[in-house]
């Protein structure tokens, strides 16, 4: 049994609390750290021959930061784009856009992670 106050505490008028707000901040911190590392990796490897890039991406300390950025990044961008959709798109198209948004985030996340793992465990 919960009291009426206990039930609503921390939930606000949206009835679902501040999970999304918090997740956007949390993934934002992860992105800030791992995007800088990934940027360094990408710059170091840009324009290099395929074999050299593969050899570098195989190293766990190179693949892991990129993998973490991908996971954190697609969660962050899905929340951000949903926010934009909810501001400008209404009715039926909104539902479509929100679904397409999730679809895009999963597609980008899954395909890049798959590519990364394929390289890590051998092409």
């Amino acid at each position: 049994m919960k009291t009426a106050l206990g039930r609503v505490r921390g939930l606000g008028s949206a009835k679902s609390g501040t999970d999304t707000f918090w997740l956007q901040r949390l993934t934002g911190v992860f992105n800030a750290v791992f995007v800088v590392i990934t940027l360094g990796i990408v710059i170091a490897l840009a324009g290099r021959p395929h074999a050299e890039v593969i050899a570098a991406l195989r190293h766990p300390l190179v693949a892991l930061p990129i993998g973490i950025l991908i996971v954190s990044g697609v969660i962050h961008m899905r929340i951000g784009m949903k926010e934009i959709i909810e501001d400008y798109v209404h009715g039926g198209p909104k539902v479509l856009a929100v679904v397409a948004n999730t679809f895009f985030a999963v597609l980008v996340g899954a395909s890049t992670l798959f590519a990364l793992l394929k390289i890590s465990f051998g092409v």
Partner: protein
Amino acid sequence: MADAGAKASRPLSPHLQVYRWPVTMLMSILHRFTGGALYFGTLLLAAWLIAAASGPRAFEIVNAIYGSWFGLLVLFGYSWVLIHHLLGGLRHFVWDVGAGFSKPARDNLARLNLLGSIVLTVLLWAAVLLFR
């Protein structure tokens, strides 16, 4: 109240075209715009990784496109968008801890956001072109 016609021709509430844009408003719009651009920009990283995983032939093609003048131009823009959104996010973290809400602080943070993103982008590319 002279007549109803005069009321109809009155201007509506001020909108963007008659609004003097405060720098904080411009940075707010830019933060959303750069976020949206990065959303689709992930495809650039995805294409690079998928091509690398596919083999040397696919990787050569992506490398050639990214290394062309048009590719470099897109990457230059992408890097500015990324750095601007990153600095904008740090600005939000300052606000999240309850700091930087006074008028001079918000204006300075906004100016720092824009100036910092431009300076860092130019420095980054200068370093890449000089040392790579």
